């Protein structure tokens, strides 16, 4: 089975073959001789490959995973071929940025754009206050503001929709 794996923004192709219950894993064409053992049910993993040893701490869900390896963080996204195709279509549909969501609960201090406005990539859309800090939320891509989902002084939950952008006509 083929997977598309992004590690800290860099794409890798992973081939997985199950042989006699063991997984044979090829990353970017390089076959890894892996021993993967979960130490507990909290994400501690003992991994040995080609004589090297790693203590990996994993957390996340099926598709998005954080690996802590010797203190460094690797953010990993996983798609199989079917998912990749579906996501590609989705990305095409939301070209221009799609919907920006809040990653934390907070209060909208100020809206910096109006509906219908054209914005550039990186342009601040609004200021969200959380944990005594004001965070400027910027446009992930150039586009047009299709909808503002929040008002000033509104409290938002984590994951709440903030602004929807669409591709400029």
């Amino acid at each position, binding site marked *: 089975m083929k*997977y598309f*794996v992004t*590690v*800290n923004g*860099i794409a*890798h192709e*992973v081939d*997985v073959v199950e042989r006699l219950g063991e997984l044979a*894993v090829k*990353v*970017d064409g*390089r076959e*890894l001789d*892996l021993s*993967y053992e979960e130490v507990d*049910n*909290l*994400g*501690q*993993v003992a991994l040995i*490959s080609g004589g*090297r040893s*790693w203590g990996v*701490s*994993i*957390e*996340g*869900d*099926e598709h*998005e*995973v*954080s*690996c802590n*390896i*010797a*203190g460094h963080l*690797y*953010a*990993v996204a*996983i798609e199989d071929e079917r998912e990749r195709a579906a996501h590609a279509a989705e990305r095409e549909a939301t070209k221009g940025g799609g919907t*920006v*969501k809040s*990653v*934390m*609960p*907070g209060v909208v201090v100020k809206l910096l754009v109006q509906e219908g406005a054209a914005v550039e990539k*990186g342009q*601040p859309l609004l200021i*969200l206050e*959380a*944990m*005594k*800090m004001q*965070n*400027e*939320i*910027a*446009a*992930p891509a150039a586009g047009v503001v299709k909808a503002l989902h929040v008002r000033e002084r509104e409290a938002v939950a*984590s994951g709440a929709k903030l602004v929807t952008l669409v591709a400029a006509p």
Partner: protein
Amino acid sequence: MFKRILVANRGEIALRVIRTCREMGVEPVAIYSDVDRKALHVRMAHSAVALGGSTPRESYLDMDKVIAAAKASGSEAVHPGYGFLSERSAFARKVTEAGLVWIGPPPEAIEAMGDKITSRRNMKKAGVPVVPGLVDPVDDVERALAAAEEIGYPIAIKAAAGGGGKGIRLVRSKDEMATAFRTASGEALASFGDGRVYMERYVDEPRHIEVQVLFDKHGLGVHFGERECSIQRRHQKLIEEAPSVVVDDALRAKMGEIAVRAGAAVGYQNAGTVEFLYSKGEFYFLEMNTRLQVEHPVTEMVYGVDLVREQLRVAAGEPLGYTQGDVLAKKHGWSIEVRINAEDPFNGFVPSIGTIHNLRAPGGPWVRLDAALYRGMEVSLNYDPMLAKLIVWAPDRDAAIERMKRALAELNVGGVRTSAPAALLVLEEERFVRGQFDTHFLNHMDLATPRKGEDVLVAAASAIHRHLLMRRKALRTSDSSRAAWGTRSRASLSPYPAHVAGNGGGQ
């Protein structure tokens, strides 16, 4: 010594004070908000008083509730920690008026150092060097030009009512003054309703160096050398160390003597920190923090002194019992501290919340973890994002850096993103290792660079294994291990285009 004291704080600093109390035979009393009722500082205390409420305002910031808790528990004194009520002179006064001992400086000293203008005036009078500039703000371009001649270029213009770097303009020469003044003043008016600005010499390649001081109630004061805290972003410190690479014995003696003079000028008592801006051999008074500092452990490791114990001792009226010479004779080695904050350093340091579901603490020689972390802890937006402080000691700076890298490699805090990987990247930077940095260092670092090498392949391979295991387990019902493992919210892993502006206010 006191029989019992109230620890008017939460989190790691409450536990820090409780630990010293336990070692001194003093009974520590904890206070707690509703959300903190299972917190480690509560469990480790001798007694605990519920304040009710879940926000700081309803609990740890409510002066009357805190003082009532102290009285009800039979405490003889109050230790404020840092943050919360620690620098509120009104609280210090109320504590004293309630017949309790305040483990901190007199309220007058807090006030004298709490106000920018007053403290600047006091320090100038006491012969403490301050950044050349105007004591009073100006509201007129002509007066600005005249003042600039006296101060000398380059000059920084700051809003009088501002903070956190908003509306700061750099003026390199006379020609740039008029425009800069108008825009700065205009911005200040728009933002704060007050168009007046300060002018002071712009300090190039600034380093944040601070001196730990301690005064008893009998007029004696000593310093415990310096800490360097230049690795910061928006005045939030990330890595601190003692001593500083740019401070030699002579400079230490000079800065220390001036820091003690600064404290003496305001009748200081107890522990405090005098912050300086250092640039190219010169240093200027910034402000005095009239409480214990977050980064006090690096001083403790280098001087072998328990600063909380000293705070209790002098608050109880004991004399210092040692001289400046005694203190400096104990100086040995190097110490580094890394703050472990719940935040995502790869997305503009936005706060990260969640439940701590997994903890792997570093250990071994000269590794100290000051934390109040426990499995099951909820990290919310209610409180400061600092989860832990990791401190190491070693005979020299190079060894301390290597030890900190080793300790960070052992640490794992599962359930939230933390600042730890960013600190590791700093420690791996050659310029940091050579000691060549200033307070802009972290802002100019590219934290987003993906790491190369085998670890990337290992991350990919581990994730795939995990992915396939999850898929298989998803087919089964009521799998508790799946729930335990996947507590991390998916949202917090999404790339997040946030740029943090914020207004700092570091401790």
